[in-house]
């Protein structure tokens, strides 16, 4: 049984149902992220767990107890908000002590706990400052300390880093993860940033249209996406259109080249399908593989341009009318193609997966669209 459990939660605002029949279980001490596009219901779900919204139907259990109708003040959950929400009239110390005072923790213990929290967020010397005298990153640290000072059962964070600049964001997310690990506190984290979710979570729940598409470890979500939405939402995906020529052998005709897939193509005989391959699954074909090894597909594209992404370099190619990406590690030995060069690339047959026609694709950061070529 999970530490936090949602049972068929539905939430409607007037006639608008924004969370539909959502069920989820979070184990004690785990870090779970809600990941999804804007408006998919992440915040609403988190707010229902926190108690700021009441589910239209369904139950929320914390440690096995139904808290669906318990007010937020009595749920004992720490909450961190996007815009910090520190009390502007109180110093850092007083902000952190707020919950302890409410809980009537004896003064001595309270001061000790505040010191401990200040040390945890590396802000020992900032206790007497007011929130407006701190940077955004420091304010969010204080908000985190304030939330965990009362030793809540779980920690809820709603896009806590989205108001910060890129560098602080990366640094603070590691801090959040470290603190979470140190305290072993069950954490639910809302973000629309897949890289953020991947880097700090034990589990990711990919959300779409008020429901959960898939729950799994970052590794599973990325490598074995359960739905085409998840496959296209996470990371970058090449989409290749073709016709099934031999369903039994998994053979597909892509623009005149036959490739093989291990996906089950029964029922698609002669039909148009889309195959997906991650850019990092592509490599430059070796010269001597003209005979084509049995577990590798080869296709030939035309180089368009090269994009530097830091540790990797992305080759943008045209294959028929479709754009295709191939990622390679950056190195000074790398030979860069010129526009119009033909490139022969290969990928393992089990790296390409079937995407059924008509199945939804996440638009942001998915597939290859014209503007991504720019």
């Amino acid at each position: 049984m999970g530490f936090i459990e949602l049972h068929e939660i539905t939430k409607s605002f007037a006639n608008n149902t924004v969370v539909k029949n959502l069920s989820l279980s979070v184990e004690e001490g785990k870090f779970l992220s809600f990941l999804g596009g804007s408006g998919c219901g992440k915040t609403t779900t988190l707010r229902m767990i926190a108690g700021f919204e009441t589910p239209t139907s369904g139950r929320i259990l914390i440690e096995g107890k139904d808290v669906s109708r318990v007010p937020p003040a009595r749920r004992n959950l720490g909450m961190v908000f996007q815009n910090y929400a520190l009390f502007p009239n109180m110093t850092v110390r007083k902000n952190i002590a707020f919950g302890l005072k409410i809980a009537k923790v004896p003064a001595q213990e309270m001061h000790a706990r505040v010191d401990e929290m200040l040390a945890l967020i590396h802000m020992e010397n900032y206790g007497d400052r007011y929130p407006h005298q701190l940077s955004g990153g420091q304010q969010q640290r204080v908000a985190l300390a304030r939330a965990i000072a009362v030793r809540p059962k779980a920690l809820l964070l709603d896009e806590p880093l989205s108001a910060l600049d890129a560098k602080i964001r990366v640094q603070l997310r590691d801090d959040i993860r470290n603190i979470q690990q140190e305290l072993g506190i069950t954490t639910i984290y809302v973000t629309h940033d897949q890289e953020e979710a991947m880097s700090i979570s034990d589990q990711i729940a990919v959300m779409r249209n008020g429901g959960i598409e898939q729950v799994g470890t970052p590794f599973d979500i990325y490598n074995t996406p359960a739905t085409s939405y998840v496959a296209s939402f996470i990371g970058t995906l090449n989409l290749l259109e073709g016709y099934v020529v031999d369903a039994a052998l998994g053979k597909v005709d892509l623009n005149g080249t036959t490739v093989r897939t291990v996906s089950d193509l029964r029922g698609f005989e002669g039909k148009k399908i889309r195959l997906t391959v991650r850019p990092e699954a592509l490599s430059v074909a070796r010269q001597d593989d003209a005979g084509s090894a049995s577990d590798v597909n080869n296709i030939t594209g035309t180089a368009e341009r090269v994009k530097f992404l830091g540790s990797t370099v992305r080759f943008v190619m045209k294959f028929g009318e479709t754009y295709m990406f191939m990622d390679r590690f950056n190195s000074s030995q790398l030979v860069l193609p010129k526009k119009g060069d033909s490139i022969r690339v290969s990928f393992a047959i089990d790296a390409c997966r079937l995407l059924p026609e008509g199945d939804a694709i996440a638009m942001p950061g998915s597939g290859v669209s014209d503007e991504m070529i720019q």
Partner: protein
Amino acid sequence: MKNGGATRKAMSWFWLIIGLLYFFIPLLSTFLFSLKGKKGVLSFVAYQHVFADPKFLQSFLFSLQMSVYTIIVGLVLIVPTAILINLKIPKAKPVIELFSLMPFVIPPVVLAFGLIKFYANPPLALVSSPALLVAGYVVISFPYIYRSVDTGLTSMDLKVLTEAAQSLGAGWLSILFKVILPNLRTALLSATFLTFATVIGELTLAVLLAWPAFGPYMAHVGRDLAYEPAALAILSFMMTWGSISLIQFLSRGIPGAKSEIGGLH
């Protein structure tokens, strides 16, 4: 280019000085006039007369008392209402805002007659009670109090702060007294002083409900005497400016506080 800049600068100074003159000349002449109580010399004799009249202090103290009641009743009624509206029914805000303009639209005479008619007969015979006067003052000060408080609430991110406090276990009383009110200090101060200024000088309600208030006293002095009203005008001007300076002084050092008077920045 340099010349253009200099001309522009000169022009701004010119207009600033015109503005200051427009503001200060009447004030200065009133002040000088108030000093002419004794023939041929400048003296504070008019001020002495003002202070010597026992009715001055009596009516002032009466109005002061009424303004304190008005401020208490007004704040107790309006602050929780404004908080509730901002938190729970923000859709009702335009309605309340419109409602808060009513005292400007309905003349005090109408309000006074309405109150007299409605509260003249048992079981609501309140015409002779100061409670009715205070009630009328609360209506008149409603726009100032509501707008100050509303501006204060809007500028502090009420909803998120409330939720943050709730998630830390705070109940409504703690939230009100430890989170909302301390951050509303400037707004409450400006509401207080605006109400004070309104009540101290109010004439119509006090006259029609027949109370010996400061407003009627000033009007009475103005009708019968020459130099003393000028002295009174200068005194009340100084009180107003004293109040404003006090707001500035008291709200100094409040983190993030701007001076807001009547909902204006």
